[in-house]
């Protein structure tokens, strides 16, 4: 038995999108990082080698709208949690024909019909109160129990993760 909402391998393969470069921040190649949460779907963070996040996505094979759960899960992993704003979350339904023949046929066979729902979280760069630029960054240091999203200054010598800073005091 698979967990309700879990993405089967045939659909999981359609979520893979290798390549790409960090947009405007650096020329580093984007890497996809998978995260885990209490939700059944697949989390993917596209980030450059310095940790600047391009986009975070959550995909679930479901008939429901996972947006609220995604917002709550992101708020739990983000400091401050006010960085997770409703209008930065955008949904996409993958119907089948645009996912390749294998996934299309798989989805067509399923009863009741369920689509692949994807929620994207994209935070555009913004200015902090001191006028320095802030970007969404991901800290995956083992010091914390889970990866941490935070607004950091990529040009700063300090890493800037608030959880790491709190621990080192």
């Amino acid at each position, binding site marked *: 038995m698979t967990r309700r909402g879990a993405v089967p391998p045939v659909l999981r393969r359609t979520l893979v*999108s290798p*390549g790409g470069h960090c947009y405007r921040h650096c020329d580093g190649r984007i890497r996809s990082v998978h995260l885990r949460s209490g939700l059944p779907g697949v989390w993917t963070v596209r980030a450059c080698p310095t940790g600047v996040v391009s986009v975070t996505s959550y995909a679930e094979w479901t008939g429901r709208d996972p947006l609220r759960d995604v917002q709550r899960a992101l708020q739990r992993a983000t400091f401050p949690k006010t960085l997770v704003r409703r*209008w930065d979350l955008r949904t*996409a339904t993958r*119907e089948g024909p*645009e*996912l*390749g023949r294998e996934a*299309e046929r798989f989805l067509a066979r399923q009863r009741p019909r369920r689509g692949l729902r994807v929620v994207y979280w*994209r935070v555009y760069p913004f200015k902090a109160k001191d006028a320095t630029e802030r970007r969404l960054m991901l800290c995956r240091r083992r010091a914390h129990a889970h990866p941490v999203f935070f607004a950091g200054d990529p040009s700063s010598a300090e890493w800037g993760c608030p959880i790491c800073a709190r621990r080192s005091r």
Partner: protein
Amino acid sequence: MGHPMPAAPRPRRLTIVLAKWCPHCVPLSVVHGRRLARQLRVPLRILDIDKPREERAADALVRAHGDAVPDYLIPQVFLEWSNGDVRHLLTGFSEQVPRTDRAWRDLFASDWLRSVRTEARA
């Protein structure tokens, strides 16, 4: 004399909701959209969300049939049918432009498109 059978619904119009500044939309989705409209033998309607009148129509279409959130993703592609049905075909892939391109190519190679074209020819 029997009653005539209702005619099978046919594709009527392809609509793309887009913005001109969006690299997933222009030129990528416009080029693919023109090709798809040609294959389906339907007109292509483009709704630019930066033009107020078109934006209202785009918002209504996305709210009723698409991936609707306050600041929704573009492009979104819809096929309208002669019986009034509307089918959401594709939403852009935020990951990167080449992924949206792949989605269009998969749509062209899909069983769904082949069956629609076969039925339209019948």
